[in-house]
């Protein structure tokens, strides 16, 4: 400890002086409550037992709350819900990346005025054409949508990037109770516009789907499963190559494999997807062959066990989500003709146990396309040196190669930052949607951990237990942050 001189002391007093209001606030609203909440997590404080009428002393129950939380199914169920919602994160990030890529292009060509004229012309031709196709005097809806697109095209060609950026950003910055209520109405099963639009489509598709012979459905389902296997093998192979070249540690290889395998393992033990349980032995065999092959072929370079951990999580995680979706699709396709035989009904959206989560995720996607992430990506894109693109052009890169070898690596920093922030946000998220739209239902299908804490802490009054859940959530978030600290920099520098 260096000694503190008189001047240092004066400086510290000045420095702390400016911090004084913050320190007070910090103590009163963060540090204090934090300690209280930690203490509460170990008590049986329950408003039903301890209130003005019943003044039983609050008892210290040790790890009782945590044991209860880990042994009862509720916590894991809601954790599962939270993680399920978080599967939307890559799509949101992808969406915002796509919109940023589109926006970063020079879509105005040359001068404004002439372009405006071109676009107005095209707009008129398109909307006239639409009217002709639908038979003059077609539905007002067609005109409405044509008009909307036309107005946007026009204002876009006049206002340029700012207009599109604003429109893209619209859903995100208005997100809140108001837009949730709006979506609740959009999703309304009987009177909502979504189902209104779907009904004719489904009436059209229903009989045709029902006509598909069972073998056709099986074939489609089989193709999807093969696709799934292909993704699995591709991701595993990539990981193996990295491992062989010493770019990825053994531990991260194994974790990558575990992540890749989760969808199959999960669905084989989950009642909904029992029909694919035959995949389980296939998975075991595949992983077995893979490990044996890896052991036999050996590695060319050694490296620390945990090297490439972030890469493993990111790449395998993305593959995992696709596998999940393909798995679900193949199941749906498998039974589709059967379902369609009675005529297809539009889904009940947030009122349906199975549709509730995807509905909310869809809404989340709507808000995520033009979010802050898009703006971050736009900034990142403008930071990519033009010379790199020119060099890639001279090297003869195709547009896709240009993206994959220049843009994407240059954006790795931004992507990782966004991913970590989204994961941290996702773990704490879901409360507002659940409270506004579904009350956590149906049957707890949309109850996330944050909504769970709310119901336990503020509705049922089990303060001790709610605190324990909150602290467990905190531990999860801390783990993500620690992961970011440990592996984040290495990933972005690779």
């Amino acid at each position, binding site marked *: 400890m260096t000694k503190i001189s008189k001047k240092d002391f004066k400086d510290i007093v000045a420095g702390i002086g400016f911090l004084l209001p913050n320190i007070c606030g910090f103590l009163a609203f963060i540090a204090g409550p934090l300690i209280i909440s930690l203490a509460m997590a170990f008590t049986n404080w329950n408003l039903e037992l301890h209130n003005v009428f019943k003044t039983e002393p609050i008892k210290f129950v040790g790890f009782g709350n945590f044991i209860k939380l880990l042994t009862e199914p509720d916590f894991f169920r809601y954790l599962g819900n939270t993680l399920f919602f978080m599967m939307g994160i890559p799509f949101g990030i992808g969406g915002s990346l796509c919109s940023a890529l589109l926006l970063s292009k020079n879509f105005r060509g040359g001068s404004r005025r*002439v372009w405006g004229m071109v676009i107005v012309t095209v707009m008129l031709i398109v909307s006239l054409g639409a009217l002709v196709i639908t038979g003059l005097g077609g539905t007002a809806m067609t005109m409405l949508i044509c008009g909307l697109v036309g107005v946007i095209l026009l204002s876009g060609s006049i206002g340029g990037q700012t207009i599109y950026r604003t429109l893209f950003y619209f859903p995100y910055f208005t997100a809140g109770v108001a837009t949730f209520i709006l979506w609740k109405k959009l999703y309304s099963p009987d009177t909502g516009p979504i189902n209104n639009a779907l009904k004719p489509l489904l009436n059209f598709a229903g009989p045709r789907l029902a006509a598909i012979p069972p073998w056709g459905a099986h074939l489609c389902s089989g193709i999807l499963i093969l696709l799934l296997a292909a993704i699995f093998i591709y991701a595993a192979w990539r990981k193996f190559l990295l491992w062989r070249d010493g770019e990825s540690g053994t531990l991260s290889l194994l974790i990558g494999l575990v992540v890749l395998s989760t969808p199959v393992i999960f669905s084989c033990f989950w009642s909904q997807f029992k029909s694919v349980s035959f995949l389980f032995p296939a998975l075991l065999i595949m992983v077995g062959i893979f490990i044996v092959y890896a052991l036999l072929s050996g590695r060319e370079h050694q490296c620390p066990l945990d090297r490439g951990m972030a890469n493993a999580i990111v790449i395998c995680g993305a593959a995992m989500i696709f596998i999940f979706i393909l798995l679900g699709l193949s199941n749906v396709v498998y039974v589709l003709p059967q379902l369609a035989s009675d005529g297809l009904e539009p889904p009940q959206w947030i009122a349906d146990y199975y549709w509730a989560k995807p509905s909310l995720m869809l809404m989340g996607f709507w808000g995520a396309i033009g979010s802050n992430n898009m703006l971050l990506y736009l900034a990142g894109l403008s930071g990519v040196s033009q010379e790199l693109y020119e060099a890639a052009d001279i090297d003869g890169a195709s547009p896709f190669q240009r993206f994959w070898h220049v843009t994407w690596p240059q954006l790795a920093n931004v992507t990782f930052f966004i991913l970590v922030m989204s994961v941290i946000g996702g773990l704490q998220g879901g409360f507002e949607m659940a409270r506004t739209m579904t009350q956590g239902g149906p049957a707890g299908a949309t109850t996330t951990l944050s909504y769970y804490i709310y119901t336990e802490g503020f509705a049922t009054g089990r303060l001790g237990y709610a605190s324990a859940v909150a602290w467990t959530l905190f531990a999860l978030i801390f783990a993500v942050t620690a992961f970011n600290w440990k592996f984040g920099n290495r990933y972005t520098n690779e």
Partner: protein
Amino acid sequence: MFKKYGTFSKVAKLLSLNIALALIAATLVLPFTWMILASVKTLEEIGLDSWLPRIFQWNNYADVFNVKGIMFGRWYWNSIFVASWVTFLQVFTSSLAAFSFSRLKWKGRDKVFLMYLGTMMLPGLVMMIPNYQNMIRFGLINTYPGLILPAAFSAFGTFLMRQFMMNIPHSLDEAAEIDGASKWELYWNVILPLSRPAIVTLTIFSFMGNYNSMFWPLVMMKSPDKYTLPIGMLAFDSSQGQQTNLLMAAVAMSVIPMILIFVLMQKQLVKGIMLGGVKG
């Protein structure tokens, strides 16, 4: 006309790009379009296929203020009142802290700052329950101060302002010191006016954040006349949820301040997001 702008394929590329952008934008805006159109329908027209009302019922907007038990105007005012106070306090405390963290040199400063940043990571949920109990104890339940005070300190705001203040040249401090400015005068006369872009950004962020905030007002505010807009909208939805047209009019009105702020302050906001997003 095309010749000036290159080959046909170039024009086609530009057109398709424009159309793609317009289609995405249209899809994203579609829910809002429905919202506006539904808000001027009669209740009977809501469930119909056609999005367009037969007659535009603009008086729906006025009717929102007259629904029994729905104090829409009052909630509007409450929201703006609370959000303004929170914003003012946040900007004040954050700029003070950021000044200390960026312009003053004192032993242990950076350690304290790291700790401060650490609180950004704490999930607010952990503190909610004890905070609520404390509010009960101090009788602040269902009061404005109870709503405003816990939100008046923002680690994010401090971070944002500090990032900005770090870029103000240090020689200005020295010039001010030689000019005879005390630390407070340096803060008030030099650094604060120069931080205007950051202040504007933080103002937008914190105003929008608090205008939209739901959890804390939901648990704190018990009587309808104290509701903020989000809580009011919840109450509206649960008590008069069948009146979709009025509800949509209310939704539309409640997002207006945000849209206004965004459109007016777009440039500052975008800059601010970059500033906050760049990892420090």
